[in-house]
């Protein structure tokens, strides 16, 4: 049996989870809501994070558009994704929710704007 101590990052409560993993069976203690259990399972099998960054606008003035991934991204794929975001130039205008990038580096990733940059 493997034991882990993790902090649930799903909400600011930051519950301290005690996780026991035996094959596929996982028991969790310390969570205040069911989302903590899902987080624990994900964290000990395939940890993922939402990535936020800014992307430069294709504009004469210095303008940066805040962006996020619409779902948590496998941690191993984050460096590749960030490289892509740094190299991009986005045409204006941009509105919150506009899709700026899809399927990079893997098919699961969608990056949307969270602001207009202005």
């Amino acid at each position, binding site marked *: 049996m493997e034991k882990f101590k993790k902090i649930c990052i799903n909400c600011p409560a930051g519950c301290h989870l005690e996780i026991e993993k035996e094959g596929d069976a996982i028991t969790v203690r310390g969570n205040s809501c069911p989302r903590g259990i899902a987080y624990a399972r994900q964290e000990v099998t395939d940890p993922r994070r939402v990535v*936020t960054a800014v992307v430069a606008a294709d504009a004469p003035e210095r303008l940066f558009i*805040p962006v996020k991934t619409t779902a948590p991204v496998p941690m191993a794929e*984050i460096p590749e994704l960030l490289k892509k975001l740094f190299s991009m130039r986005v045409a204006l205008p941009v509105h*919150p929710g506009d899709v700026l990038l899809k399927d990079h580096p893997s098919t699961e990733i969608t990056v949307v704007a*969270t602001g207009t940059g202005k």
Partner: protein
Amino acid sequence: MKTRTADIAVIGGGAAGLTAAARCAAAGKKTLLIERLSRPGGVLQQCIHSGFGIHRFNEELTGPEYAHRVLTQAEEAGAEILLNATVMQIDGTGEVKTLTVYSRDEGVLLIRARAVILAMGCRERCRGNLGIPGERTAGIFNAGLAQKLINEQGLLPGTRAVIAGSGDIGLIMARRLSWCGVKVACVIEIMPYPAGLSRNIAQCLEDFDIPLLLSHTLTGIYGKKRVEYVTIAPLVNGVPDLAQEKKITCDTILFSVGLVPENELSRACGIELDPVTNGPRVDSSLMTNIPGIFSCGNVLHVHDLVDFVSDEADRAADSAVAWAAGERPGEAAITVKAGKNLRYTVPHRAEAGKTNHFYMRASTVMDKAELRVTSPEGRIIFSKKLRYVKPAEMISAAFPCPEESTYTFTLENC
């Protein structure tokens, strides 16, 4: 000089001001919000990470998204927003208040309103406030300033950083720098426990193997033109143990050592401040000692969650709306005191015979605790069990308040 009138004037267009303006306007009051920057949203605009709005919108939003929502609410409700306009003075005497505003587009403006809501937010404490010795060289930033440079202007502050202070802004910046290719050598914290939220320790430090050195302090900053290294030492019995001093190479230092509510304007117009919160002393309607002037958000006390900022702004707005309509709140005769294990409580006075909302901060870390509110005779008026009490995480409580001269809030071990 141009004069404008409104029922309610809101000073500051961050989360607090926008939420309050939306609510005042939705209640049918002519509402004018004054913001000194060229865009509304306040500190939310530079907080591109997610973690906003879970309580209020049941969704995890980024700062700009939260700003967009409350801005849209304010605009749709019909609040007028004046940008590039700074409130320089408040005259709070008399039934109608007068604000002197310097506007980029309109010059000097006088704004007259029946009620005023203070929502000016706060600013960062800096190296000077701490008295860290060493050289005065380039490469020393406040964490929030570095955040603004990276996220709003696309500028990197350096290549190898030490972060002083483990507040949330510092932790968020540790991740932001790491994702931008800047190496974070370590985060040092003078207290024996971290100042930020646990989730930020997990996702901003542990994910990147950034060491968090607790009970450590900066003992010097060195470099000619640019920072070259810092020295740090552990605290032993509250003083730096120089025998264990260590040198850490870096070209950048970020200070994340707390925020100070921005109350120069309030002080100048005679508003009484609480020396612990650095914000106005208020009653349960969030009214300051000057009748008709209300306060909410970070200018009242530093919040860690924007959801609480907006909840508080709603209450300030409701009080301002009632005031502008000519209603007068009941007397807030109960003195509220922070006792054992608590640093402060807001509001400072409560009103008997109705439900009052309280926010407070612990002065220490506790695993399990009971929040207790007692009368001068020791009768327990309210109690509530809490888990993982930390100074970083604000505690809230709301309960119907019976008549008493004083309420003392304490955190008891249990």
